[in-house]
């Protein structure tokens, strides 16, 4: 039965779908962005809202029980740990002298591509 859903299930589905959109956006960013530092943004950061929406969806689906409280705790841990991971990776790269790509380099790259193709 297609209509055999409660409002809670529909709401939860919408939230989880919204979260998935941000996860997909994160994956697209990972593929499209040019260098290490910009990819850190895609991998580490786009997950925050994706995670937030998915967890809200799961909590709505579960109802306000002890399990929902535990999920909220997992969500808080993700929020505390995610930036630490991103920061440590980028700090290691920065301290070891990995060059930061700027907008100028990007324009240069696009020109080179144009030269190759035409």
């Amino acid at each position: 039965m297609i209509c055999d859903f409660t409002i809670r299930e529909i709401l939860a589905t919408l939230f989880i779908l919204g979260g998935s959109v941000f996860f997909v956006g994160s994956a697209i960013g990972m593929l499209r962005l040019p260098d290490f530092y910009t990819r850190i943004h895609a991998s580490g950061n786009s997950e925050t809202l994706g995670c937030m929406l998915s967890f809200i969806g799961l909590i709505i689906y579960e109802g306000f029980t002890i399990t929902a409280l535990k999920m909220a705790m997992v969500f808080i841990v993700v929020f505390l740990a995610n930036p630490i991971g991103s920061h440590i990776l980028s700090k290691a790269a920065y301290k070891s002298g990995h060059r930061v790509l700027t907008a100028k380099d990007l324009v240069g790259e696009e020109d080179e591509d144009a030269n190759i193709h035409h």
Partner: protein
Amino acid sequence: MIKQESVDNAKIVGSPIVHNVCLFLLLFAFWMALTGSLKTKFIVYGLITAATTVWLCYPLLLVPNRDGSKKYFVFGVSIFKFISYSVWLMWQLVLANIDVLKATTSQNLDIDPKVVRFYFKVDNPMAYVVLANSITLTPGTVTLNVDDDGLFEIHALTVGAAEGVLDGSFQKKVADLYGEDYEFAVVEEEE
């Protein structure tokens, strides 16, 4: 370099009894949430474990400031201020996340990656942690490095993300959270 003696003699900001009680309640609430049962056995275990953890961990949760004259409790922050800060941060996350998603999925990759720098000085060392962590948590900005002089080096992905860090609203909110005066100065880029 801070001498060990001066750290031992440092004055603790706030009342240690209040700190201990707050930490105990936090840990006990965490225990109760994880067990999810109100049997006497679990409550007694929880009380004993929480008390032992507080006794062992309280000295580790005191961080000295730069000149070593004061020690700050890590969780020594008003809960209402913290909640209002969290809500504000969540909203910033939503806005920044949509901004980054638009930039990375746009046709010609609308990004402007660069490193921006600013000075931020407060007395409470936890303010640095919270600021650096909040900036990294916000999509489009990652804290690359924070040095001893309070120089923050931030990698910003889009124009909007760089402006968001440099306009000083983040710094003001974090300083308000800890109720402290702060110094903030943007380091101009050398071209």
